[in-house]
């Protein structure tokens, strides 16, 4: 019967079971205290019901011991919930495994674009392998969206002007709901689709078949180029290479091996070169000038889409 009337969504990621355990704990505590209050109120209401219009009960003033008891016990339980939840939250949002599969995500009114590291693109459907951490780097072209996969118990807002990331590891092959959880306008409720988790071998087959399709008939949805290749092409089209080169002719700093390094700015501060810094440098190049260079770069605001910025970043990351 519970198959047809479930109380929890499928448990399909490494987080799902941990989140559910904590959920059961809080549910248990809540049912205990809820039942305690309900039963006491009903019991007192019946036992001490008014039997005559003139009766006047003896007053009870209060009890410090009782007050302290029912302050301290809820406090301890609440702190347990906090600590337990915080440890899962920390792993969910902070401890991204090193070997994660990197997938880039762009949200826009009203669809999700995904691109796999080998170039395959999809809209509103995301194929992923099971048993391997997947890291989503997400940006939005317009308003705030929020990527939500209930079966994985994960959700993260996608905020204009910054990259947000989310990671998970699927455990069960299957097709799961993918929703936008942050209200984003008229078709908000239709901005979603599915996550299809596949055995790693099937995932590889899928990648290959989509890749072959793309080579046969390239369309916008399934492109042949990987993000790195697309980024390289774009890098040349936009003439980035004419300034960003090593040596005395380089008007801008060389980008080889720069990703993940710290660079010194003309203000004397240092900044780590990550996705957000590169993005900012493309859109607002004069915000953080590297020491020794002139603020000569024009902005590319309005000339590149979020997807193209991600491709440029993928290319810069690949420069070793």
């Amino acid at each position: 019967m519970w198959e047809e009337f479930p109380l929890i969504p499928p448990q399909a990621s490494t987080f799902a079971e941990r989140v559910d355990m904590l959920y059961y704990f809080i549910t248990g505590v809540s049912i205990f205290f809820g039942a305690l209050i309900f039963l006491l109120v009903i019991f007192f209401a019946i036992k001490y019901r008014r039997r005559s219009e003139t009766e006047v009960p003896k007053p009870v003033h209060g009890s410090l011991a009782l007050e302290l008891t029912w302050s301290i016990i809820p406090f301890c339980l609440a702190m347990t919930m906090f600590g337990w939840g915080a440890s899962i939250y920390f792993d969910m949002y902070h401890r991204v495994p090193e070997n994660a599969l990197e997938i880039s995500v762009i949200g826009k009114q009203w669809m999700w674009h995904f691109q796999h590291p080998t170039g395959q693109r999809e809209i509103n459907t995301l194929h992923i392998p099971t048993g391997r951490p997947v890291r989503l780097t997400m940006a939005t072209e317009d308003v705030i969206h929020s990527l939500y996969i209930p079966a994985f118990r994960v959700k993260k807002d996608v905020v204009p002007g910054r990259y947000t990331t989310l990671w998970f590891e699927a455990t069960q092959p299957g097709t799961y709901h993918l929703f936008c959880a942050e209200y984003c306008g008229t078709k908000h409720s239709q901005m979603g689709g599915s996550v299809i988790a596949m055995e790693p071998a099937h995932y590889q087959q899928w990648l290959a078949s989509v890749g072959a399709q793309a080579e046969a008939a390239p369309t916008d949805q399934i492109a042949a180029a990987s993000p790195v290749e697309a980024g390289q092409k774009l890098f040349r089209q936009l003439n980035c290479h004419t300034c960003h080169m090593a040596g005395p002719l380089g008007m801008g700093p060389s980008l080889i091996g720069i990703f993940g390094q710290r660079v010194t700015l003309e203000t004397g501060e240092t900044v780590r070169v990550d996705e957000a810094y590169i993005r900012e440098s493309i859109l607002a190049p004069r915000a953080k000038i590297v020491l020794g260079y002139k603020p000569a770069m024009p902005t590319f605001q309005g000339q590149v889409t979020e997807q193209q910025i991600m491709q440029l970043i993928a290319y810069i990351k690949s420069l070793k």
Partner: protein
Amino acid sequence: METNVVGVDQSSSGEPSAPPRVHYLNAAYGIGSWLLTKDHKRIALLYLLSVTFFFFIGGFFAVLIRLELITPPGDLMQSETYNKMFTMHGVLMIFFFLIPAIPAVLGNFLVPMMIGARDLAFPRINLLSWYIYSIGGLLGMGAVIFGGVDTGWTFYTPYSSTYSNSNVILAALGAFVAGFSSILTGLNFIVTIHKMRAPGLTWSRLPLFIWAHYATSIIQILGTPVVAIAIVLVALERLFHIGIFDPKLGGDPLLFQHLFWFYSHPAVYIMILPAMGVINELITCFSRKRIFGYHFIAGSSIAIAVLGFLVWGHHMFTSGQSIYGGFVFSVLSMLVAIPSAIKVFNWTATFYKGSISYQAPMLYAFGFIGLFTIGGLTGLFLATTAIDVHLHDTYFVVAHFHYIMVGGTIMGYLGGLHYWWPKMTGKIYPEGWARFAALVIFVGFNLTFLPQFILGYLGMPRRYHYYPEEFQVLNVMSSAGASILGVGYLIPMVYFVWSLRYGKASAQNPWGAHGLEWETSSPPPTENFEKQPIVTHEPYDYTPKPEEVAVV
């Protein structure tokens, strides 16, 4: 002090057939005498009419929303229309019903009466606040009439500031204007409570209803200006594109969320603290008991008001804010649970060895304890970071805040309205119907919102017009509950109006209650008391008098 009659039935028939008495209702006639009144009791009735109007408009939108959600595809209305419906439902209910309901109606009527004052400290400002509220309400209604708003009541940027092409400015202006009414009412209450208490009414003799309104007023004064600023910034951004929230111009979209929730989380306590204040009066009267732990309850109101300002970030656990910030907001949110738990335990303990009668106001108080307990406990899930990541922006949140804000506030409001109805109007409402309505509302409410907790954990996001088929059964249950709830809310409206004409006249103190408001006639004279009351005892002093020793 009134000690003679106890119980409603004998007292209502005991009214002597004297010539018509002059009281605040018949002291002056004509529309002008109402629209220019400076009497806090008349202003309370003006508010009663206004909030009732907005409650039923907001409720009408709720009915349409629940009708739409009976089936998974959006087959009743367009997505755009649906989005406008839930936005206007939220805006009207929150800014024009839940926030003003208890302070502006019951608070306005009772704060001066309970402290033995003739009026509020600033009667003209009190009238002004009703006009400001009404202008805000008209602006809000204007936004509906001119085509609606589709941002959600939260007005999140950059959707509201740049992308939505609906009447955002008009609706926001309505909320902005109404905010000033809230600030003025809070200011008036604080000054009145400080300066105008009757001789002998020390702080530790104040009714807990007054303590609750004092705490609420602090939030209104400190919090409301912040949301006003946020709203002005959205309007400026829309009109002049100055780049406060738009990252393309160097702004920060999350700044709005911080400003908005800095007010809008405490706003929940503007709604629920006054309801708690009402519940204290009801359960002491109908159990004929002193409240258990008076000082803890008074202190917990202040604690909730103060802590309420420190927890806004728990609305943003998934927003990408610092995870360490998330931890801090999570701990602080957990702390709010403690004073709330203290209140519930104290109410339960007050019943112990009481003399409990099941009059309609008490049934609403029982209902309040039930709904508030469920709402409070489910708050623990949302304060827990990792669980909130899954539940954020789902129906679990919808159910949780309806239990607290709607279940709690309306149970308190209706309970208080029944309890003080004889005082306000001089009429007795039909007890049988009132008990029946309380039951219908409790059943309807739970049938509407309990399924939504399950829907939320299953992953149904809020503000969804279309939804996957497997969520249908629970949605149908919820919609069925909503229709029962709707009927439940209509019944009191009918018998209250009926009682104005056909209800029996009420005695001065039909419930045998304690409190200064019961020491004057019903309805009270314009100046509230025939002579200045003097307080010589603690509140809720239901101690047996020598001549009426207990039959317990």
